[in-house]
């Protein structure tokens, strides 16, 4: 028995054993090529195929979508996804490629989709056969998401879409997009509707995907242009003008605060996967000389490394305490902090690693003398993706102040 499994229900315990048995024989070997830091930076077909094969085999074994109803391709279990996630991490599997689909599109479809749509789309989403992307942000609509301008014009039973979405991770591989559209220009929030739209099948026929290059030098996110793309009304999720409410479901899950646990695997050690966590930071501090001694012996660095360890442990314990209602002051208070804390703590840890590395922090990917292969500068820069995407840290603090402390709304 380990920490996590001592309180399993009988169903969870049996399922955990199933996961362990299957993972024992089916955890894939490391690939011969480099994998990027996360699914959001997948660049090649080779990387995509390896990761899609992994998701499909895990899905076929029942480890993905276990808590989704059977009629939508799920496992029909109760509170078992967390168990599968824990076991996949323990087995050090690769991560899932369909991260936007699993984390955001699937719960939104499940809550708001029509029956036919759910039966058609969810099984292929869960298995990873269809990759999904998210069309929320626009060049003029970032933190003020409800100001989106991409417009759907009514045309009989269909809609004609024109506009410009941006920061769209995985769009270059995506079959489908969840999209927030303006159907009425006279009302801000009430003028929004939520759709799913085809991407890969409409390329060159109303959809153009253009890659953007990140400050790290990686690709992975895109601009998506819509020019007179016709979309059937049956692809709408929720009522006309209800797009903001539907988007709330997406955003809650994106920020780890939704009711469904996202299928998530990972843990595989890879030359290019380097978590910005204190275990890796301490490893670096042991190997690095600082003022003529190992950095791990420097009193100021020791103090700062402990500050990071304490915060990281505090976040882990928050997630545990969120499951103990008797120790909560407000039902959403801890969940709404998850995304903010995860991204900011990782950013501070990576920043400290660069200080520990000293002059060697100047060495990047491809330099043979770079500590940890140059992964720390990459990890540090990558953390800005997380403190900006899915609602900036500033927006998260507004949400916490307004929803939990009932302070006056910014708008």
């Amino acid at each position, binding site marked *: *028995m*380990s*920490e*996590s499994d*001592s*309180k399993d229900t009988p169903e969870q315990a049996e399922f955990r054993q199933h996961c362990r048995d299957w993972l024992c024989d089916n955890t894939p070997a490391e690939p011969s090529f480099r994998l990027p830091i996360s699914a959001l930076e997948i660049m090649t077909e080779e990387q995509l195929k390896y990761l899609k094969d992994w998701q499909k085999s895990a899905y076929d074994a029942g480890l993905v979508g276990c808590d989704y109803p059977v009629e939508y391709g799920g496992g029909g279990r109760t509170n078992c996804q967390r168990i599968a996630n824990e076991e996949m991490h323990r087995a050090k599997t690769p991560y899932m490629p369909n991260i936007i689909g699993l984390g955001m599109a699937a719960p939104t479809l499940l809550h708001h989709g029509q029956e036919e749509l759910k039966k058609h789309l969810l099984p292929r989403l869960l298995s990873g056969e269809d990759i999904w992307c998210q069309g929320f942000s626009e060049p003029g609509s970032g933190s003020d998401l409800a100001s989106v301008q991409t417009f759907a014009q009514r045309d009989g039973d269909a809609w004609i879409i024109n506009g410009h979405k941006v920061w769209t991770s995985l769009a270059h591989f995506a079959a489908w997009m969840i999209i927030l559209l303006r159907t009425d220009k006279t009302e801000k929030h009430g003028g929004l509707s939520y759709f799913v739209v085809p991407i890969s099948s409409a390329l060159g026929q109303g959809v153009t995907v253009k890659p953007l290059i990140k400050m790290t030098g990686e690709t992975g996110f895109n601009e998506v242009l819509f020019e007179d793309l016709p979309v059937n009304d049956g692809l709408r999720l929720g009522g006309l003008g209800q797009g903001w409410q539907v988007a709330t479901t997406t955003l809650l899950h994106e920020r780890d605060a939704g009711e469904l646990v996202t299928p998530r695997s990972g843990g595989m050690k890879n030359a290019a996967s380097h978590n910005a966590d204190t275990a890796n930071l*301490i490893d670096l*501090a042991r190997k690095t000389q600082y003022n003529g001694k190992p950095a*791990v*012996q420097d*009193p100021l660095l*020791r*103090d700062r*490394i*402990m*500050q990071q*360890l*304490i*915060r990281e*442990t*505090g*976040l882990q*314990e*928050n997630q*545990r*305490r969120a*499951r*103990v209602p*008797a*120790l909560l*002051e407000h039902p959403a*208070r*801890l969940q709404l*902090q998850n995304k*903010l*804390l995860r991204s900011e703590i990782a950013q501070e840890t990576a920043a400290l690693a660069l200080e520990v590395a000293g002059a060697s922090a100047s060495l990047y990917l491809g330099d043979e003398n770079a500590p940890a292969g140059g992964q720390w500068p990459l990890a540090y820069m990558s953390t800005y993706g997380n403190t900006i995407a899915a609602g900036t840290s*500033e927006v998260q*603090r*507004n949400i*916490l*102040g*307004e929803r*939990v*402390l*009932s*302070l*006056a*709304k*910014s708008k």
Partner: protein
Amino acid sequence: MAQPDDYGFSEEAALLKYSARKFFKSNFPTDKLQKMVADNPDSARVQISNWDKALWQQLLELGWTLLAVPESADGLGLPAVAVAGLVEEVGRAAFPCPLLATLNTTYVLAACGESANGALREIAEGTTATLALTNRAGSWQPEDTEVVASEGKLNGTAYFVQDAGKVDKFLVCARKGTGHSLYWVATDAPGITVHADAIVDLTRDQAHVDFADVEADQVCEDGLKALGQAFPAICTMLAADVIGAAEWQLQTTAEYARTRTQFDRPIGFFQAVKHPLVDVMIQIDEAKSLVYNAACAIDHEPKRAAEYAHMAKASASETAAFASSRSVQFHGGIGYTWECYVQLYFKRQKHSQMLWGDAAWHRGRLADIVLGKVS
């Protein structure tokens, strides 16, 4: 041994915690605290311990001091998570009483073995007590004690003795030969002089205590071992008190930010106020999660209890400082006055922040465990 996912925080523990909250809400509102402890702002006032003995007597009768006493000494032997839940509420009410001091003493006595069973039974019967082991420089390492034991008599002075004016007994750490032993003695025993310190915190009292040829009962030969074993519980319970008090500071300041209007808006509208208040909440939550993790380790994973207790107290000390600073600042001019209640918690938190080690001290000890000592 593994920790249970829910910290072992039982229904009984929740009942204890929330009935304590209710009790303080009805019997000890903050205006009562202010009237009781802040009647005289003159710093030259005589140091007296202002507390509601009658209310404390009710809590004694409810059995609060025997919660942590092992069943073998006629106590209730409740897990540390349940005790922490209660202490959080005492901190939230900033209730002046010798509960923490008595709990600390209880955890040390429980680590002494059979020789301390008599003293534990006294606590189970309602005796209150505090630890006397800190030196003039305020060292939290008990081997630095200035009290010496020879031929069964104590001599020297113990400093920074918590709630000395409220308790019946001292548990003294004294140097004996090459080792350190623990002694159990009544606070009014012949040869003892208690000098009340003039302290910032109005909700506690503190003293330095002179021992001159004091006859005392030795209850533990290897005192440092027992103190070391109990230290995680001492830090964790104080951290629980801190997060309770910090939650009061957060809720009180948020309420003010919702109602105080400037520039035609409640001040909580402004992100210069909103965002730091959220950061106070974030710090409280991290510290609180670390407190229950540490308490659960005391109950289920004693090998890691010290490590987790250092994390909890380091985090709680930072929280105490930040929540206090923002509570006064965001109350503006009124927050700077004696009549505003935030001063009471500000001062209690400043005391708690350094008591039993401040954040940097605990991180230093944590680093020794996690990274190894510096050669």
